[in-house]
């Protein structure tokens, strides 16, 4: 992959951060999930900017790659990415969390907008993704199914039922990316419910597993492009919750919060400076 590609994905992630800040400011007192969106901006940029095979002119294209946001509270990053690739218009993006909108605080399934699944309740997407991956295998389609999970979300036992089933079913067309930002609502994941050595756990479940820096686009694209044979792929992406805005980074309260104008101005300045926009 060329340096230009990486630079372009970096710029895309920065624009998505700015869009997320706009949406959060626009949501006013409703507030928004900024922290968990900021941690996965590079993951989303790699997916939507480079990896996922989609056709915005034919959103229900049968051979498209499927992406399910299991950590649906990544919604600001998800909507921003869909706007970047033309599934959501800039005008529609501005309706986020306004009455009558199609863009709620958690995504509601809408094929035209590229939203495959109605998320919000954690731990439910993995099973659906397995079903979709089984279907692709049965019908001989080459598409892959991607799931973005949170690390806090892995407290839910339904994930582990799926983690056991996917290798059993030899689903090498399934990729789970864990946005491991190490914070959940009440505090650090290791204090609330320790995940321990997640990579070892996934390997013991027979997933082809790699650990990467989830803000490094080189590593992300390489990991997402890699296709194991005969078993599913787990990418544990080490990230920083609130990444890109100094006062949000690793701060629990930014999981879901309201943004003041002054905070917005400061955040925009930091994101622009970092990306030289």
């Amino acid at each position, binding site marked *: 992959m060329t340096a230009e590609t990486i630079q372009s994905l970096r710029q895309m992630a920065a624009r998505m951060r700015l869009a997320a800040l706009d949406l959060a400011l626009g949501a006013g007192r409703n507030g928004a999930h900024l922290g968990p969106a900021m941690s996965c901006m590079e993951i989303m940029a790699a997916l939507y900017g480079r990896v996922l095979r989609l056709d915005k002119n034919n959103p229900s294209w049968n051979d498209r790659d499927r992406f399910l946001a299991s950590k649906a509270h990544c919604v600001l990053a998800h909507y921003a990415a869909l706007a970047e690739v033309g599934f959501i218009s800039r005008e529609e993006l501005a309706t986020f969390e306004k009455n009558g909108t199609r863009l709620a605080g958690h995504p509601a399934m809408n094929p035209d907008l590229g939203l495959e699944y*109605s998320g919000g309740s954690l731990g*439910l997407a993995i099973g659906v993704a397995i*079903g979709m991956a089984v*279907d692709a295998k049965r019908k001989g389609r080459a598409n892959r199914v991607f799931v973005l999970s949170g690390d806090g979300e892995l407290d839910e036992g339904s994930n582990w039922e799926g983690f*056991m089933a996917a290798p059993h079913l030899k689903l090498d067309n399934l990729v789970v990316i864990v946005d491991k930002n190490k914070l959940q609502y009440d505090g650090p994941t290791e204090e609330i419910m320790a995940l321990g050595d997640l990579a070892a756990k996934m390997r013991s479940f027979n997933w082809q597993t790699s650990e990467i820096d989830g803000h490094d686009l080189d590593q992300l694209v390489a990991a997402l492009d890699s296709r194991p044979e005969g078993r599913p792929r787990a990418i544990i992406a080490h990230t920083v919750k609130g990444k890109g805005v100094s006062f949000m980074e690793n701060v629990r309260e930014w999981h879901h919060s309201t943004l003041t104008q002054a905070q917005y101005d400061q955040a925009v300045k930091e994101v622009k400076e970092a990306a030289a926009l």
Partner: protein
Amino acid sequence: MMEINPKNARLLSMLGQRGSIFGVALPEIAGERDELMVLTADLALLSGLGKFQTQHPDKLLNLGIAEQNMLGVASGLAKEGGCVFVTTYATFLTMRAYEQIRDNLGYMKFNVKLVGASAGTAMGMSGNTHYAIEDLTLMRVIPNMTVLSPADAGEALKMAYAVCDLDGPVYIRLTGGLNCPVVHKKEYEFKIGRAELLTEGGDLALIAAGTMVAEGLKAAELLKERGLEVTVVNMATIKPLDADTLNRVFAAHKAVVTVEEHSRLGGLGGAVAEYKSALKSSPPMLMLGLPDAFTRADEQPFLLEQAGLTAPRLADSVEKFFNEVK
């Protein structure tokens, strides 16, 4: 589809409602429909799926004892165009995976057919963990769900075909075990959303579902000897309720009794009561069913007797109620 006649009705009765769906209907349907899939949670053999497994191994997925994941996988397959049957015991199917059912089947309307086996007290000595006495309530309050409960094995067979032509989530509540009573001895048309009047009498209407239809018919015979004319309604579709038939039944009778092998709270009786509450006038109604309690584990006939759900006890309750309100 196998024709309903006295001989076939007997055969299907021996197989029970579950055996009729998984051993007779689905092997045939799978031969005709590419999109059909059957998912089970380590109950393939018990569900009578042996023949299906032999004939259509590529259409059967056994996902182990993990109902939540099974519902997720079914949803993913349905999202991609599948017509997916999912089965295990009614209690585990409807309760362990309730949120998957609500979000994936209700909210996202995925085309999954839930077949809950051994609902009510059919599991006898296995006890309360294996009884499903709340499943009708739980399933019918989820938006977009269709909720069915066949009166006999032949009707279960017909339902399996009918739900394949319906694009949307369905819960089929199976009651009774092997050798279940026969209600239909000759061919008839089953239609989702249409109640069936099995007998017509001018005094009282007995609205029943599942095992209680056969029991209700026997009770109606007993009551006839005592001079009470009873209309027995087979309410095989609990949702959507057949409002037209209910309107006619309410207009033509002095009293109504609902009966189900399910908690008295929120099931068939609850559904009829909700509908009735919005009417200007309607006859008095009694709701019979299992008590709002976890009972001691006993054999099913003993439990039904205790709950007043055998024909002689039903007849007594119905007669007493009729005499109070007529």
